[in-house]
């Protein structure tokens, strides 16, 4: 696993275990009369781990979507200075990083997760808005990279021949770039291209850059996986039939073959999403990422390392948040894989 980065090598091999749908349906144990999708959904609902992780993931999505509403109810924004909640060294006063459930303090607000050192910003609101940033970046980057991967993998797998060779070479070529170094080198270069005359780049442009770089370097494993699956499906009877009936290649690729790949693609997606969350956090750790005042978990961890000894809570909250999110995704994708392929290992 290269350092921090998306353990997709691992994931990709795991994913390959997912049996093609038809075989699942024919499994001797299969309950008669349910479509593979219903069957998977049924198993997923039966799975306690899956149920609990869905709740956790749902919680994160909820706070990300309704961050503004939460701010309105909670009463204080994520970047309101409260220097009087800090001692002269900038550390939060009170217990556990300034956790305060009363409004009897200089800011006049409750701080259920305490306040940030140095600024006195409310950690809970940072956490809430941070979920939004992390999820938007991870979601968009993963969606785009999976789409690119599907597209390239399908083309390579379906057409074979020199197209396959060229695209496979291109995939290998993209894989040979050291991701961390390329990301921290490319993001600033892309940003300089977006600069105005003073070198200023807007928040949206910066977020877009990150998403673009993640998508650019994140599609290869999906492409390989899809390519392999398409090759195995290409010769199936119904594809032959469609071909014989005169359907064009695009129709066959995207109407006949792709719909049969949703299971492995879903699993790849659920695996690469947490990998992207982690990668984004890691880039923030190296100082490349979203900027203040936009709250972001990764940057919060990076920032909290500065206060690790005096305000351990501040490290714990973003650390545990990312951990919980990534763990939930991992557990969920495990459960998903089980549900889609009951014969698989676990």
């Amino acid at each position: 696993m290269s350092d921090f980065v998306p353990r997709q090598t691992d994931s990709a091999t795991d994913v390959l275990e997912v049996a093609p749908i038809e075989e699942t349906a024919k499994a001797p144990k299969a309950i008669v009369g349910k479509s593979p999708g219903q069957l998977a959904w049924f198993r997923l609902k039966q799975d306690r781990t899956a149920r609990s992780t869905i709740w956790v993931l749902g919680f994160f999505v909820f706070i990300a979507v309704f961050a503004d509403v939460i701010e309105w109810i909670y009463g204080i924004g994520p970047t309101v200075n409260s220097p009087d909640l800090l001692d002269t060294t900038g550390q939060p006063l009170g217990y556990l990083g300034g956790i305060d459930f009363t409004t009897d303090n200089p800011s006049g607000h409750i701080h259920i997760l305490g306040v940030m050192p140095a600024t006195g910003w409310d950690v809970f609101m940072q956490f809430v808005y941070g979920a939004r940033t992390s999820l938007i970046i991870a979601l968009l980057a993963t969606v785009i990279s999976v789409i690119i991967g599907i597209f390239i993998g399908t083309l390579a797998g379906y057409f074979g021949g020199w197209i396959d060779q060229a695209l496979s070479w291109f995939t290998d070529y993209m894989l040979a770039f050291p991701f961390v170094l390329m990301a921290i080198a490319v993001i600033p270069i892309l940003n300089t291209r977006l600069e105005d005359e003073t070198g200023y780049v807007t928040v949206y442009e910066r977020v877009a850059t990150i998403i673009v770089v993640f998508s650019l370097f994140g599609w290869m494993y999906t492409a390989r996986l899809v390519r392999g699956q398409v090759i195995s499906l290409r010769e199936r009877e119904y594809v032959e039939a469609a071909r014989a009936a005169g359907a064009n290649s695009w129709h066959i690729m995207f109407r006949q073959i792709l719909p049969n790949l949703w299971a492995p693609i879903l699993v790849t997606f659920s695996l690469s999403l947490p990998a992207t969350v982690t990668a984004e956090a890691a880039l923030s750790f190296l100082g490349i990422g979203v900027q203040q005042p936009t709250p972001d978990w990764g940057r919060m961890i990076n920032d909290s390392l500065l206060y690790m000894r005096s305000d351990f809570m501040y490290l714990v909250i973003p650390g545990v948040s990312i951990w919980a999110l990534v763990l939930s995704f991992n557990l969920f994708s495990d459960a998903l894989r089980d549900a889609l392929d009951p014969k698989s290992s676990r």
Partner: protein
Amino acid sequence: MFRFLIKRVLLGVSTLFAISVTVFALFFMGPADPAASMCGTKQCTPVQHERITTFLELDRPPHEQYASYMRGIFVGRTIGGDSPDAIECPAPCLGINFRTYEQVSTVIGRTMPITFSIVLGGAVLYVLIGTGLGMLSAIKRGSIFDRIASGTALTFASTQIFFIGSVLLLVFVYQTDLLPLPKYVPFTESPLGWLGGMIVPWIALGLINSAQYARLSRAQMIETLSEDFVRTARAKGLAIAPIYFRHALRAAVTPIVTIAGLDIGGQLGGVAITETTFSLNGMGRTAVRAIDEANLPVVMGIVLFSAMFLVLSTIIVDILYSVIDPRVKLGTSGGH
């Protein structure tokens, strides 16, 4: 075999060539004024600007710059052209570190042992422990041991090196002094010092990566244990040990070797996050710093070097694969 190797190496070289072109274009032509960004935090005087321009040959057309860079790698070159301060850079010349006027190859030579120590030591630890635990979990599938091991593995696999590493440093180094502070002491200088300085990074890498290897090898082993040939082995009347070790393990280890090979290959080019977390000046951290300083020749050199390791590791993995699995015929397969 021989034909395959040639084909594979040629493919690798073509990849490296393409990467070098891409990286070159990106770094040297990406920024509007590379000389200015390399000039540093102080104001860039025309003298400085011109010096950087001549030294990096930024005034020449891109293809000439690239040709001269590549020539440098194979036959060496003189950096700075006809300027009185020109620097001789013998092959393999990856350019000159703009800050220290060292050859980039010297920088790589100096930082490589650090990265290698971290990565190889860590790899031994996590591959052995991770695979061992995973296999054991698979054999004792469903037992308390399996549950605890799998749960722990999932927990650690979901954390990041900079988080675990920082917590390890805080708890075991700073606050309790149980483990020595990470630092690099050359093995030749003091094997014990080398071991001591590397132990914390290894543990951190070990915790996270062995978790991932445990998960992988557990799944792999479980799958293998359900294979027909394992059943055949049992039907022969073999005892437990040879069934697991001679039959199941042998087959389960193949994908693990593949992934370990690719992982290690990827990491040998620098583990920026790990090195940054533990303040070790390996290739990764050096590259990160060079990126900060816009020290393009150093960045370029290290990126190319990393890519070389990645490409090399895919070739080695292919060869290993054919050694392990007699079904893989090197002559026919073109890649993975």
